[in-house]
């Protein structure tokens, strides 16, 4: 995957994730191109577009457009599933997610995305595991973190995912 964009029906950007390094100018141009192209599409068209050498997969959920760009050898139908999975994760976290949730909690949307995808690839295929990781990270934020080993041991035991506590320095 090359990039993932979320934008509203008016073309306002709500989230941007770039999986390759690009200059600010290039990013701005791509955002402009994508919003123009996708918003111009008719209601019942297919969800795929060809743009330069990339395949663009887009899907509208309520008032938000999710726009994913993949390389030519990737599976477009699966890309639709990836978008859907992300929406499901957001929905589970926020409870009936809507655009306002993403506007006011954009950093959480990024955190969830970063538990699901990394470097343009899927990192976790289980919804529950992603949700649990996010919840545990959120809990960590609440604690007055002092960096001692004892504290963190207690925290990590609250997950049902079995893991050892990282590598000691």
């Amino acid at each position: 995957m090359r990039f993932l964009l979320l934008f509203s029906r008016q073309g306002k950007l709500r989230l941007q994730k770039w999986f390759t390094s690009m200059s600010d100018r290039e990013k701005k141009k791509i955002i402009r191109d994508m919003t123009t192209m996708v918003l111009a599409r008719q209601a019942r068209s297919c969800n795929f577009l060809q743009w330069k050498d990339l395949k663009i997969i887009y899907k509208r959920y309520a008032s938000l457009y999710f726009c994913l760009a993949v390389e030519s050898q990737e599976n477009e139908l699966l890309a639709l599933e990836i978008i859907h999975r992300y929406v499901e994760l957001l929905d589970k976290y926020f409870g009936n997610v809507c655009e306002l949730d993403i506007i006011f909690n954009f950093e959480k949307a990024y955190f969830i995305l970063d538990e699901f995808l990394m470097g343009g690839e899927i990192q976790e295929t289980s919804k529950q595991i992603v949700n649990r990781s996010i919840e545990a990270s959120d809990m960590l934020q609440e604690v007055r973190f002092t960096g001692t080993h004892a504290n963190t041991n207690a925290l990590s035991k609250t997950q049902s995912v079995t893991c050892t506590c990282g590598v000691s320095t």
Partner: protein
Amino acid sequence: MPAPIRLRELIRTIRTARTQAEEREMIQKECAAIRSSFREEDNTYRCRNVAKLLYMHMLGYPAHFGQLECLKLIASQKFTDKRIGYLGAMLLLDERQDVHLLMTNCIKNDLNHSTQYVQGLALCTLGCMGSSEMCRDLAGEVEKLLKTSNSYLRKKAALCAVHVIRKVPELMEMFLPATKNLLSEKNHGVLHTSVVLLTEMCERSPDMLAHFRKLVPQLVRILKNLIMSGYSPEHDVSGISDPFLQVRILRLLRILGKGDDDSSEAMNDILAQVATNTETSKNVGNAILYETVLTIMDIKSESGLRVLAINILGRFLLNNDKNIRYVALTSLLKTVQTDHNAVQRHRSTIVDCLKDLDVSIKRRAMELSFALVNGNNIRGMMKELLYFLDSCDPEFKADCASGVFLAAEKYAPSKRWHIDTIMRVLTTAGSYVRDDSVPNLIQLITNSVEMHAYTVQRLYKALLDDISQQPLVQVASWCIGEYGDLLVSGQCEEEEPIQVTEDEVLDVLEGLLVSNLSTPVTRGYALTAIMKLSTRFTSVNRIKKVVSIYGSSIDVELQQRAVEYNALFKKYDHMRPALLERMPIMEKTASNGPTEIVQTNGETEPSVVEAKHPPPVTQPTNQANDLLDLLGGNDVVPVIQNTVSTKPASAGGELLDLLGDLSLSGGTSPAPAPSVPTSQPSFFLDGLTSQPLFNDIAAAGIPPMTAYNKNGLKIDFTFERANPNPNIAVITIHASNSTEADMTDFVFQAAVPKTFQLQLLSPSSNVVPALNQGTVTQVIRVLNPQKQQLRMRIKLTYTHKGSAVQDLAEVNNFPPQSWQ
């Protein structure tokens, strides 16, 4: 200083702004507050301020002054700070800013942190935006984490490794040991990311690919378990167990099985199983089927499996879901080359997709339709495609028109059909055809000799209807110029001949000249056509008038043409018929169209090729046609004929090639040496004896010479000075044959160094009779403005006693008077 406002508060405030200006003002105010807060090195609120900055960045405002603050947040001990800090790093920093390297140490510490979520943040950031330097520094840490038993970290480390390999491919070897038991993991996250890592390694290195082929059985087993296992709540999507992992495994199998018989065989069964057992009611099942089809087509699968795959695609084509139809068309396009017959079976469905409302589907269907056209279905397919051309959106017309031309060229069942098809395209999509189609069409029309009358008649009728489509008008005016006589004579076999007078034709052409719709190029065509008709029609006076009017046209190109044509009427009327003669048949070139005029060294005039002379046996026709000028006549013979088609270069290349090591400074030893002594000074003195040199140098006082004498063929040069231009030497060659057999198909070619210009006129004949019974003469005119020493390389080809003979020679013994 009051506490900075909270993030949500800021967002709420900004959203109340009613205009862009109001929003900008709020943002500027807040940025100023944030800046001063940063200056005060406020630890407590740094996180909040950076978060606000990130929001403003998303709205499109500059946020670079927050970059260092992100680094400070990353270095903090608070998890909240780290989270926002790393997010800020991913959004605001990238490898283009030097400051990003400062992160490296922080990331290194965090990779070894005691809390896995901190480690996770570090891995994530490195895996998303790590630069090559960072990757090099931290690859060791990533490799360590790849071997941990903590699945949460292991999966992240695997994807981080993928990123490292993408940035620094040389480090790939380093991760090899850690991959040993990756696939024996039970955790799907780790499995998935491991497959991604393996795929990346196999795609980058053939050695790795060979090494990992042994994993095929294990991958097949994992896939089998996924399909056969019962419901697993954790990974279920619409009744299918972990489709993401399935697709990824199929993709890896594709790479491993490509080109390898054993691996392909090992996967045959599982592929068949997936293809037949996968539930297709939802998109997710079709996604897996799609990937399966792609894999089957790419590996060395058995034919039964391939047919199964194509049939799946055929079923996709009939699916109600547009996405699936689109995907089917795309895949069929990929396979149409290799499994042409199988795809042909679905041709009617594909052609139906041309009528689909969706733009993406129409485009794919068009591309696929063109790929499926062959000699058998050309008529039917073309009907559908022309109908599509009529009704499609403008964005398709150019591509469709080109496709139609190509297909028609390859598979036209008859010349008439071909011309009809072209006419149809020109009239329906005439303004969208590509520029090079006009010369291509002209060439096609020229070559269909028996269709000339029919073609010009149809084009004329089309012009009467509509003169707005420039390519059509250009082709039509060219044809009328060439074949106007056929038009007025009313001969047409193919269809009812129309009655049209010369004046009517001239009316149409003049109409083009004055019309606002015509481009300058079109006007040029029209004027030239009118001029050509001066030799085909009887009403020359009218043409003369038109031509003289345009002699003062504002358009420089038109003016120049008109002036030159005027000159043709006045001073060079005797040359007019020859110049405006019918064009010869053009041979189709591989690369260039017939209008390419090659500027070569030593020849400034566009060399005109007379394709019929000399006889084609000794003439490689291909490159000759590169020099065809649309206007040229047939009485000037080429300066240089191109050599045998081993060299596809332009004529200039041939010239240089023939010249080869011909240097102007000193003489290199030429192969067949002429029999005349080469020392110049002595010749000066010898000149006294041969010709009355001192009497009249301006006259023909230059001694003749023997240029070539070998194998019974002798070629003498005699000289004259051309009046009025003293720089031109006129050489007449005399070729004689002292053997007992005739030399037939005799061709003489010559090349001169760059500073000269050469013109070769027609030879008297191309048979050199035996036993000196006659000579073949040919005139060469050499322009030598710099008065350099004349040198020439000649090439002779002829047939003697049934075998073809070819020879090259250098002629260096020109008498000095010939060039001084």
